[in-house]
């Protein structure tokens, strides 16, 4: 009897401690990987020939607003690039905004990952737009309004949590594979000395057929 109660206490401790570290475990990773790996059928026939005209600006539909009903969230989306000082994604400093990676696909894309990243929180401004992002799971809906005014709906298929040192960024910043929406923020344990989180939380969502 005593053995059982000791064992029970240890199991409870381990289980709850695990939850505290990782309250939203990864789900749907295989689906997210499959989307990244899928490719359009190769064109067949003769040698492709293109006009050698100088490249002009591409017609891109930038995400302008993001709405996630489950999180009671609406946020403005700014087009952002790279922080020249660090080489990192230039997440908008204002924590109530989120940033679309303007070098990657826009909403018009027929392939690749549309990336929107936002702060989970900030030391100065408190909770960020993506504070509860890790609560999203498969089946939840994300609505993105484009610069053209049209709303596109996406269905979450995966929530993955990676240590920042191991996050497969090439998969999420890919310009090929199935068209998909990728939402990124921080998560996991917080290092109070460096003031950084250990992990990235990555949500993958697929476009809803219109």
């Amino acid at each position: 009897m005593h053995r059982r109660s000791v064992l029970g206490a240890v199991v409870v401790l381990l289980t709850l401690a695990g939850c505290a570290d990782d309250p939203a475990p990864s789900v749907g990773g295989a689906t997210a990987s499959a989307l990244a790996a899928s490719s359009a059928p190769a064109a067949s026939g003769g040698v492709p020939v293109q006009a050698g005209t100088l490249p002009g600006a591409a017609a891109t539909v930038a995400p302008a607003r993001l709405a996630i009903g489950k999180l009671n969230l609406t946020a403005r989306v700014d087009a952002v690039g790279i922080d020249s000082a660090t080489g990192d994604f230039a997440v908008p400093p204002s924590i109530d905004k989120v940033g679309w990676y303007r070098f990657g696909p826009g909403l018009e894309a027929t392939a690749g990952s549309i990336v929107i990243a936002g702060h989970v929180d900030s030391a100065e401004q408190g909770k960020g737009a993506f504070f509860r992002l890790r609560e999203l799971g498969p089946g939840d809906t994300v609505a993105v309004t484009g610069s053209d005014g049209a709303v596109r709906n996406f269905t979450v298929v995966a929530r993955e949590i990676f240590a920042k040192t191991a996050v497969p960024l090439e998969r999420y910043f890919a310009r090929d594979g199935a068209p998909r929406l990728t939402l990124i923020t921080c998560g996991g344990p917080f290092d109070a000395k460096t003031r950084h989180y250990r992990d990235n939380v990555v949500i993958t969502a697929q476009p809803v057929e219109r």
Partner: protein
Amino acid sequence: MRLRRMVAALFVVAASTAVFATPAHAAGPSKVSVVHGIPGQPVDVYVNGAKTLNNFQPSTVAGPLDLPAGKYDIVIVKPGDPVTSPIIKVDQAAVPADANITLVAHLTADGKPTLTPFVNDVSKVAAGKARLVVRHTAAAPAVDVRAGGQPVFKNLTNPNEAKGDIAAGTVSADVVLAGTTTVAIPAASLTLAEGTSTIVYAVGSATDKTLGVVAQKIEGLHSTPGGVPSGTGGLLDEPTPWGLYALAIAGVVALAGGAVAVRRRVRA
């Protein structure tokens, strides 16, 4: 200039005395594109006796084709002409393995049709950057390439290239005779997409007043951002220590309870 030497080493014509060493390891095919930079003359292109490009128009880009490493006979004729009356003929052109190559049909500095191979730099560009390559393949003297009015590539001669990785975006560029402000090719707006290489060929003839440009784009050279730092508050993590302390206390209580139970059993 250095590229020219590299190209010479990689792509050896039969007339040359150099020998291209085939690597011993299993090697993949090369991506080969063809740029037509001779104004006013459509052509047919034969590779190893087979017509590969039919009525190939000036200022167009064909390919890329996957070609296994090996030696190829390339013949360029006027449309419909037999291979026995070529405009350009290259015997036993060596295509290396695993390379990205552009064959440019163009005029030499003194106006004769020729075929020059260039090896394309398909290394990744840093996130936020684009690669600009300019190749002088025109019957014209040395030139400078200016962007926003400032010379960026100086004293470029036929058949050589200059290149650089610059911030992605739109630039206005023109070509002037080297060391002068005499415009050879007027300014054009150029959108350099992030993670791509844009290769601009100066083509045509200064004497014939047919100078112009042909552009080739290579995509998929993008890198990822270094990371996605998106939290400095620690608010997400804050409850955790208290939760753990509470759990630890609960655990100790449970263990103590167990110990009490043991003692009770021993007494009984």
